[in-house]
């Protein structure tokens, strides 16, 4: 496909929008060549449409000019999904930030895709409602990006990931067609296109409006911190709580290194000497909270938890969650860069995989820290490193590959909530055979027959049956992954 460097192309987009919403300064383009991952691509031009009509116009012009289109929300994604390659056109929805409608009766909200996740929950708090998916990046990530990645978060353990909370959407396809899929009336006839688009990583269309389900705040919430003498004990307690018939609202684990880094950052009086800390939240009616708390405490003590610290009030609860959600920022105290992984393993294999990750890091002489969604087996091993050290970077990638393979070997999946993007694209054959990759490619091509939307993401080259592969797996020169 063409690249967009020629000034005449930029002028064509300026004619559609206006000068300040078309970005072609080289320095700014470099910003848009990255996202929250460590991947760096090549951005040709950035456009900032504010309406569906403008998105359609940009997509149509891109088709006329034979440009690849890379949709972008806040750019906080962690798998390179929003990273443009080969000078593609970035269509940012960051200016589409209106909350169009809040309907407390459904309850639901209809929003533009650039609305930030936390802003949405803040906008409905006075109604006693909230939006359930709560990624750690929720202060910065957009609802549109959440839809693209099928984002999760700690509270998805009981409430489910984004796909369970998107009722309907408006989407612009690669040829500029606009479709309204789903809505508040459940189960319309035909295939669940709405459900399929969630997690499509911007390869199926550009979502220009989303109707999300809101949830009523539970009448009572109890948030507990449990400290354990070993990671194994904490992992076994997680299994014990679930086996005890309790699916907590959230169940997060932090290892000692991470707890210490976080404590320096938030001063929450965390148990820094514990080998592992569990943050468990239960909610519901007073009777439900009491029953679930009893199970959590009982199982915790049976597995050696020293004490169960219950958040005394909303302030302390917020502090516990701040500790959890600022974990990634706290890593800056350990090393300048980090590589955050995102695999899911069967809960029953959690401990064994954590121990293996420890060995992998040690063998490569790397620091690995863990903070993750223990309740659903969603691991987030984080490798701290210094990007300036090329040899270390190589070890980081090698360790990452080992970790992914270790997770897959016990029946795990490549991503729990971050997505595939560029980062894990070439790992897809680890979990899907050729026929399955071809089936995914066929479904994608049905949405985007022109192959214009976010090309080269999610599916490795050669996924399509009979696709000619001259240089399998290669990324364009200059791409830094």
């Amino acid at each position, binding site marked *: 496909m063409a690249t967009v460097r020629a000034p005449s192309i930029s002028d064509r987009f300026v004619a559609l929008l206006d000068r300040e919403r078309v970005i072609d300064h080289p320095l700014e383009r470099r910003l848009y060549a990255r996202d929250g991952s460590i991947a760096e691509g090549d951005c040709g031009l950035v456009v900032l449409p504010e309406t569906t009509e403008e998105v359609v116009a940009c997509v149509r012009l891109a088709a006329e000019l034979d440009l690849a289109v890379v949709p972008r929300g806040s750019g906080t994604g962690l798998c390179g999904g929003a990273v443009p390659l080969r000078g593609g056109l970035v269509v940012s929805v960051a200016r589409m930030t209106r909350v169009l409608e809040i309907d407390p009766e459904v309850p639901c909200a209809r929003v533009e895709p650039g609305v930030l996740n936390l802003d949405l929950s803040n906008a409905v708090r006075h109604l006693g409602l909230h939006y359930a998916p709560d990624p750690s990046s929720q202060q910065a990530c957009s609802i549109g990006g959440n839809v693209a990645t099928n984002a999760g978060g700690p509270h998805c353990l009981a409430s489910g990931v984004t*796909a369970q909370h998107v009722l309907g959407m408006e989407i612009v396809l690669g040829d500029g067609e606009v479709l309204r899929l789903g809505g508040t009336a459940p189960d319309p006839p035909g*295939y669940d296109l709405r459900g399929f688009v969630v997690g499509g990583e911007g390869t199926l269309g550009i979502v220009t409006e989303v109707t999300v389900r809101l949830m009523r705040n539970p009448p009572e919430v109890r948030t507990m911190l449990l400290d354990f003498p070993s990671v194994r004990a904490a992992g076994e307690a997680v299994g014990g709580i679930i086996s005890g018939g309790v699916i907590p609202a959230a169940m997060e684990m932090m290892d000692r290194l991470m707890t210490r880094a976080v404590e320096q950052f938030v001063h929450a009086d965390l148990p820094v000497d514990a080998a592992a800390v569990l943050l468990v939240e239960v909610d519901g009616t007073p009777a439900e909270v009491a029953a679930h708390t009893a199970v959590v405490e009982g199982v915790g003590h049976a597995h050696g938890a020293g004490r169960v610290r219950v958040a005394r009030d909303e302030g302390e609860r917020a502090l516990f969650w701040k500790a959890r959600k600022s974990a990634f920022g706290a890593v800056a105290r350990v090393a300048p860069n980090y590589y955050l992984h995102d695999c*899911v393993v069967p809960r029953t294999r959690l401990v064994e995989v954590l121990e293996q990750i420890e060995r992998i890091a040690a063998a490569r002489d790397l620091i690995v820290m863990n903070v993750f969604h223990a309740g*659903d087996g969603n691991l987030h091993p984080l490798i701290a490193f210094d990007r300036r050290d090329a040899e270390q970077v190589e070890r980081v990638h090698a360790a990452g590959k080992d970790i992914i393979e270790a997770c897959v070997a016990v029946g795990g999946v490549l991503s729990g909530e971050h997505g595939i993007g560029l980062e894990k694209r070439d790992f897809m054959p680890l979990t899907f055979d050729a026929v*399955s990759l071809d089936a995914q490619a066929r479904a994608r091509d049905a949405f985007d027959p022109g192959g214009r939307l976010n090309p080269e993401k999610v599916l490795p080259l050669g996924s399509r049956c009979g696709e000619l592969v001259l240089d399998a797996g290669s990324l364009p020169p200059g791409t830094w992954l």
Partner: protein
Amino acid sequence: MTEALSPATPQEAAAALAEASEARASVGVVGGGTRSRRGRPAPPPDRLLRTGGMRRVVAHEPADLTVTVESGLAATVLAELAASAGQAWPQADIREGSTVGGVLAAAASGRRRLRMGAVRDSLLEVVIATGDGRLATGGGRTVKGVAGYDLPRLAVGSLGTLGVIVQVTLKLWPVPAASGWFGAEAPLADRLGVAARALAGPARPASVLLAPGAVAVELIGPEEDVRPPEGLEALPGAPPEPAGRGLLEAGVPPPRLGELAARLEEGGLVYEARMGVGTCLVAVETADDVARARAVALGLGGHAQVVDGPDDLRADPWGPAPPGLELMRRLRDAFDPAGILNRDKLLWEVS
């Protein structure tokens, strides 16, 4: 004469479909046959594939809350298996004779959807034998995962038109400590009041059902929470579902269900509105009943499909086509290029 296909394994199912595609023979797909009277009336297919021979339990990991089974397994057998570990598949509408694959292909969500979600949210991994006889896997066996395109969501509700669901991994849930049905008989305005109070909590009911003359609430949770709400009495069990010559399933924005119920009652139709969810089952006797009930649903911003009934009730089983019909056709062609599978079941030739 319809030829019977009874594969015992997913591989046999795929081979049978590859051969049928080659021969351009139309194929009907049947699980337990409890939801097969849907779609447009059509002559018998050249071949009828029954999934009942594929009924192995591939893996059951109680501590992971997952189970992997072949699609022809009876849903009641799966329920017993789950119950033996104190677990359940609470999103599913399980009928006597239903298969696991059939429940999913029909996207048949049960009465606990209000609290537990839709059945499409319970499918973690799917293996389908596509129309051209290839075994494709989508999703993953862990309770959470976003790797690759969500073929499971495409398969649920596809009524066997993309391929035959041959194996699935489901997410199970712990069985609640207690559960109970509570109900009252009252005029519509009072019933709507009961429903609104039940939905407002503090307990999150599993189900709030409105029917002509009656309202019923199912509560689940600790014993202390399973007590009659004010004005309701304990019922001996779940209320009966509406039954007629046929069944229509309407979907409207949840706040409009009260209006839907009022209009159906005015028209003398028997229904079960699932309050807070937005779905409503309507018993229909005649094509005129279908048309009347559908007109009300459409007027409220919804839709209505005939989900069961004899041929004369299914002349127009779907109503107006939803947005994206062309895209749906491209998807079907991608998975069933010869167009052999269940051609009458989903809205392909809507006028």
